[in-house]
């Protein structure tokens, strides 16, 4: 299988704290890969480093878009990483609360549009067309995620589960080839988690988007993932398919007391 994301020997120091220690990870095209580990293991830091929010101390990050050439994205700004086809959601929801659901998704489309200041002022036909299209496209994304009933609602008025899904919709709007989800099921009830499970599979199968997700819900992780990486104290302690990970003694030790085979 061709890789789409290649992270090699990624290290991140926060002052004296080594939050990530020499982590290598690959995601193949069309794969769903999970990144798990106890609280404070460095999972979110990993996302922040590969999406350009934090500069990594060492290591390399590259994306290989389907049918394209390998692009090294280490040191790029977050917006350029997104432009190259890697989008993400946030663990602590970061929606634009005072914008509507539709507008949130429209912001996701921003990097695939081109109108500038003259276009804004003169509203030439190209700009008018683009503006019309962005509304339609954004609505299309909302339909795919199943949020169309909230289209004109303010983001802050959405129920919690819907806010998490709007984060996914907004990231999808940037037309990524790989999607990074940081604890998408956090705070969801059993029914919402099930719907999320279906949604993620649908995104992979129908939209052909590869997925790397961080998740604490082991049931979801085990049912969704093709492969799993486990980190603890910034170090990779295991990788492999779900069945192997469940039986791995190092993983069980790291999760001591936590239920793995839920």
């Amino acid at each position, binding site marked *: 299988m061709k890789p789409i994301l290649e992270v090699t020997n990624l290290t991140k120091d926060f002052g004296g704290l080594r939050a990530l220690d020499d982590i290598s990870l690959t995601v193949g095209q069309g794969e769903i890969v999970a990144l798990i580990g106890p609280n404070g293991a460095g999972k979110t830091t990993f996302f922040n480093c590969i*999406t350009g*929010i934090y500069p990594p101390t060492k290591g390399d990050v590259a994306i290989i878009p389907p049918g394209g050439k390998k692009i090294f994205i280490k040191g790029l*700004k*977050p*917006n350029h990483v*997104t*432009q190259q086809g890697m*989008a*993400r959601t*946030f663990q602590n929801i*970061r*929606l*634009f*609360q*005072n*914008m*509507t659901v*539709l*507008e949130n998704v*429209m*912001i*996701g489309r*921003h*990097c*695939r*549009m081109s*109108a*500038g*200041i003259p*276009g*804004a*002022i003169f*509203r030439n036909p190209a*700009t008018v067309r*683009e*503006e019309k299209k*962005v*509304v*339609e496209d*954004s*609505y299309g994304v909302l339909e795919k995620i199943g949020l*169309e*009933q909230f*289209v*004109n609602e303010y983001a802050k008025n959405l129920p919690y589960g819907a806010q998490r899904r709007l984060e996914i919709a*907004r*990231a999808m709007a*940037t037309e990524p080839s790989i999607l990074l989800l940081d604890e998408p099921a956090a705070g969801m009830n059993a029914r919402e988690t099930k719907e999320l499970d279906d949604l993620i599979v649908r995104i992979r199968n129908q939209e052909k988007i590869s997925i790397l997700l961080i998740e604490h819900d082991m049931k979801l992780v085990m049912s969704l993932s093709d492969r799993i990486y486990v980190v603890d104290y910034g170090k990779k302690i295991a990788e492999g398919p779900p069945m192997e990970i469940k039986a791995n003694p190092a993983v069980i030790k790291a999760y001591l007391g936590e239920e793995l085979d839920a």
Partner: protein
Amino acid sequence: MFRFSEIKKSFLVALWLMFLTFPIMVIRVNTIYKTIEWRWERMFMVGIGAFFLSFLWRYLHKKKEAGEKKAEEAGTLPLAQRLIKNRQFSIPAAIGLGIFIIAFPFIFSMYQTNIMTTALIYVVVGLGLNIVVGLAGLLDLGYVAFYAVGAYSYALLNHHFGLGFWAALPIGATFAFLFGVILGFPVLRLRGDYLAIVTLGFGEIIRLILENWNAFSFGPSGIANIPRPGFFGMDLSLSQSITYVYFLMIGMAIFTIFVVKRLQDSRLGRAWIALREDEVACQAMGIDKTRTKLSAFALGATWAGIGGVVFAAKTTFINPASFTIWESIIILCIVVLGGMGSVLGVIFGALVLILLPEYLRAFSEYRMLIFGATLVTMMVFRPGGIITDVRKTYKFKGLKDKQPTV
């Protein structure tokens, strides 16, 4: 009805204030006769005043909270928006306003027209700052620097090269834009308070340069005899010229409103608002933070430049004293008081803040006091400004026909 505990609270406040102000309000040392006067009646007045004010304060607070709840339940728009929506009201009002605007210089004196023109300059400049502060959420306290750039562009270009108003207008705007880019580049890495302080510093630097670089800017004595705007080479009398500048500013204000509205409802405008909401998420969604911020900063500066050129042409004399930090603060107050992000609010704010002090000359000693008190009261009771911004959101209209398939 008022409960006993409320009365007790106000009573305690009054007591406390009486105690606090005792030394300055009551005791008066007469140094000539070496006696001490005890003015007890003043203490009494402070007490009564504090009691009633504290009562009023809490009453208004309660009313505000109740009002918010009601508005939330009913989902009603603020009064201004409702009036605009109501066609029966808005069309006659617009016609009436139009007639009033056109007739203004012919009904009122030259002096009044001149004040109105000043207010209109502030409308334009305020709308420019509204892009920076209201939409993009960048607190810029050195905005007046760009106003100065515009004014000095015209004054100096005219002095050295004899350039006229109409040639200087786009040049002044361009200079201000470029200055916005140059100043914005290092400054916009900072956020919030830091940005405010650094922009404040930059504003002062520009003023100090103008004050001290005599060879360039003629120092504190400024530049005089700047020509008023020309009208197809005709010779205008003073009153004609004032009327002309008035209409020029009306046109300019309409133009500004038009452009600002369009910018607000564009791809760029959305990015500004998103940037104000959450910078990190905005970048992660593919928006170039630096460029978006810079465009807001520079576009805001452009309007200040335009305002500056007109200001120089209108007063025919400029010196650095016209571009102090106070000017920045007044423009900022126009935006905040009027209603951040709201075009109508900024217009209203400019008219109130510029016209009121002119007509309340009697109270001019207390101007700053009233100003400050109004601002504090506003921030407590109407944090959104006089005319709270209700942004026109994007709506998906095809919703109805699509519903059955859902």
